[in-house]
C-alpha cells in the first residue's frame, strides 16, 4: 500500500502576491526589518500588499503610522540610524511629495554627509502610475524628482518576478530606495507567472531585453513596457522589428544593455509616462546621444506624457499619456528618417 503525497500544483502569482511574498520572506529572513505606513497593519494596506503581515510579525514590526508621509520617512531614517532596515509604504506614490524633504534632504544625503558612517537601508515603496482613471493625485509617476536627488536608488518593476526579486534586492541593497510599483499591474491576470520556489533577489542596475528586434529600440520601464510590446506586435505587421528594453532600475542605470541594443538597431525611442520635460526618457536620450551617438541613424525620440497633470475623464487621460498608437507612429517616423 503506497502512501500518496499530494503536492499542491504550482500556481501563477500576480504582481501584488509577488510583492507580498517578498515582504513575508524578508521579514522572516531579517529580524531587523521594520515595515511602516498608513493602514498597513490592521487593514493590511490599501492594496493588500501587507495583508497578514502584522498578524504574523506583530504591531511593533508592522506599524500603522499616523497620516504623515514626512513622519513615515523621517522615523524610518531614525530606525535606520538605529540599525534597522525599513520598508516605508506610501499609500499612493503621489503622496510621497508630503515626505519629500525627509527623503531628499535627510535620507538621501545621510551616507554622503557622514562620510559613510551611516547607512540608510530604507525602501520607500508605493503604488504608482496612470491609465486607471486615478486622476491628478492617484496617477503620478514622479520618479524624476528622485533620480535628480543623489543618493537614492530608483526602481520600477513591470512583472511579478521582478516585483518580488527587485523588492528583495532593494531591501538588501543597503541604500535608500524609491520603489515604484505599478498599481494597474497589481492584479492583472495576463501577467501572472510562476515564481521560483527558492529565494531569489535581483541586484539593482540590470536591465532586461523583453523582446528582441533589429530595427528599433524602445527603452522604457513600468507599465509602458506593455505598450511598447504591443506596439512591437503592430510594427511587425508593418515590417518593422522592434526591440524592447525594460530598464527596471533607473538609478543605477544599466547603460550597457541600452548601448548594445542601439548598436544593433540604430534607432531609439525612450518612453515614460511621466511628463516630458526633465523626465527620465530625456536622460536616456541624453546618455545615448553622448556615449553612443555614432550608432544612431535617426534622432533619438521621446514618447512621454504631455507636460500636463493626469486628468480624470478617459478621453482626457488617454490624450496626454503614451499610447500604442503614438509609439507605432513614432517608430515609423524614426525608421523612415
Amino acid at each position, binding site marked *: 500500500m503506497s502512501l500518496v503525497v499530494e503536492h499542491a500544483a504550482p500556481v501563477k502569482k500576480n504582481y501584488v502576491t509577488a510583492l507580498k511574498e517578498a515582504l513575508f520572506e524578508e521579514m522572516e529572513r531579517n529580524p531587523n526589518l*521594520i515595515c511602516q505606513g498608513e493602514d498597513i497593519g490592521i487593514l493590511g494596506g490599501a492594496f493588500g500588499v501587507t495583508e497578514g503581515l502584522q498578524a504574523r510579525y506583530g504591531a511593533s514590526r508592522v506599524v500603522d503610522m499616523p497620516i504623515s508621509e514626512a513622519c513615515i520617512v523621517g522615523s524610518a531614517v531614525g530606525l535606520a540610524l538605529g540599525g*534597522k532596515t525599513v520598508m516605508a509604504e506610501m499609500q499612493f506614490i503621489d503622496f510621497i511629495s508630503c515626505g519629500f524633504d525627509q527623503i531628499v534632504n535627510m535620507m538621501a544625503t545621510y551616507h554622503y554627509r557622514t562620510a559613510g558612517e551611516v547607512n540608510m537601508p530604507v525602501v520607500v515603496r508605493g503604488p504608482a502610475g496612470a491609465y486607471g482613471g486615478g486622476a491628478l493625485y492617484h496617477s503620478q509617476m514622479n520618479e524624476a524628482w528622485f533620480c535628480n536627488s543623489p543618493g537614492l536608488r530608483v526602481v520600477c518593476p513591470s512583472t511579478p518576478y521582478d516585483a518580488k526579486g527587485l523588492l528583495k534586492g532593494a531591501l538588501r541593497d543597503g541604500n535608500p530606495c524609491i520603489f515604484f510599483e505599478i498599481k494597474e499591474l497589481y492584479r492583472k491576470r495576463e501577467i501572472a507567472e510562476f515564481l521560483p520556489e527558492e529565494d531569489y533577489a535581483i541586484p539593482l542596475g540590470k536591465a532586461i531585453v523583453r523582446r528582441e528586434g533589429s530595427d528599433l529600440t524602445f527603452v522604457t520601464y513600468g507599465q509602458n513596457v506593455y505598450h511598447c510590446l504591443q506596439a512591437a506586435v503592430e510594427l511587425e505587421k508593418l515590417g518593422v522589428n522592434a526591440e524592447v528594453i525594460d530598464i527596471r532600475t533607473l538609478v543605477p542605470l544599466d547603460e550597457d544593455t541600452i548601448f548594445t541594443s542601439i548598436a544593433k538597431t540604430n534607432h531609439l525611442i525612450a518612453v515614460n509616462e511621466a511628463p516630458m520635460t526633465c523626465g527620465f526618457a530625456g536622460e536616456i536620450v541624453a546618455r545615448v546621444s553622448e556615449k553612443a551617438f555614432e550608432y544612431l541613424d535617426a534622432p533619438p525620440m521621446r514618447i512621454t506624457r504631455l507636460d500636463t497633470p493626469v486628468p480624470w475623464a478617459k478621453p482626457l487621460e488617454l490624450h496626454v499619456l503614451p499610447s500604442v498608437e503614438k509609439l507605432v507612429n513614432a517608430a515609423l517616423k524614426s525608421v523612415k528618417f
Partner: protein
Amino acid sequence: MSRTSGTAPAANATQKGDTPSIRPRDLLSKEDCLEIFRQLYLARYFDVRLIKEKRLGHLTGTLYSSHNQEGVLVGSLYGLKPNDWISPIHRDMPAFFLKDIKFDWRRADRMGLSIEEVCAQVWGRVGSPGRARDNWSHIGSRSKRIIHSTSMLAGTIPVAAGVVYADRLDGGDAVCVTFNGEGSTAQGIFHEAINYAAVHKLPVVTVVENNQWAYGTPAELECPTTDVADRARGFGIPGLVADGQDVFDVYDKVMTAINYARSGRGPSIVECKTFRAYGHGDHDDDRANKYRPKEDVEKGRARDPIAICRATLLALGHIDAAHAETFRAEGKNASEAKNDDFPPEVVTFLNEGIEFALQSSLPPADEGAKWVFREAK
C-alpha cells in the same frame, strides 16, 4: 507629572513651573553643581573664542552664536545617560562636546564628540567626524548617539522618534533630547513628529530654545500661543516652561521630562525661555540696531546664565565670596571677554582642540564624489 500611561490627559495638562517636591537639582552633589558652572564657562568660551577667530579671518563658515543660551544646553544635557541620543541644531554647537562630558573632559569612552573633532569641523578639516562634507553644526555620530543635524528645522524630530523606537525594539531605555528654536515650531514636521511620538509613547524630549527671534522674525509672528509649551496640550503630553537663563531650572524641567520619557510615558515639550544675544549668524550684524531695538537686546542679555548660576552656587554655599569674584565672563561680548575671564582649564581644553584642527588637513578633492552610495560589500 503623575499621569499614568493610557489615561486621557486633563485639559490643563500643560504644567508650567510645576515640579515635584524633590526637584531633580536637589539630587545633584556639590561637585555636580560646580561642574555645571564650569561647563557654562566652557560653552561661553567656545563661542567668544570662535567669534574672535572668525573676526581674525581664520574661519570661513557662518557662526551661529549660542551666547546667552548656554544654560539651555548645559542644563538639558547634564542629566543624560551616556547611551541617550541627542539632536542639536545650528545654535547648539557646544552640545556636540558637552554630551557625556562630566568631570573628566578627556575620558576616552565618552559618548560625545571630542573638542578636537568639533574644532576640526569648525575649521572645515578632514579631522571632522563628517570629514567637512557639510558645514558648521551639521555633524553627529552614530556611535556616540548624536543625530546629525541639517538645515531643515524640526526635521530631525521624526528621526529622533525613529531612533528611540529602534532602541526600544533592541531592549534599550534610551531617550532622545532634541533641540529646536521657537521658529521651528511653525513647521508641519514639528507637529507631525510629536504627534507620532505621542501616539507611540516614544521617549522624545523636545527642548524648544525660545530665544525670541527666528532670524529677523519675533516669536509672536511664529507662534500664536504665549508659551510654545502650550502646543503640548494638543498632543496630550506634558508641556513645561523653564527659565532658560537658570541652568538649574532647565535641569529640573528637562530631567523631569527625561524621567517621564524613560519610564515609558512618552514625549514632552520643554520650552526654555532665553534670548539670542547676537544676530542670527555672524553675517547678520544686529549691532546695527536694524530690526531689534537696542533696549530689548540689552534687556535680553541682562540675565546672564553664568551670573545666575554663580548666585545660586553662592547661596548654596558651594562657592565662597572670594571664588565668586574670579572669572567674571558674564555680560562680556566677544570683544570684551579675555582669556583670564575663564577658568584656565577651559582655555587649555579649547586650545588643544584648535591646535588639532589647524594640524588637520583639508579633505582630498576627490572625496567630493565619494559616499553618494554605500559601496558594495
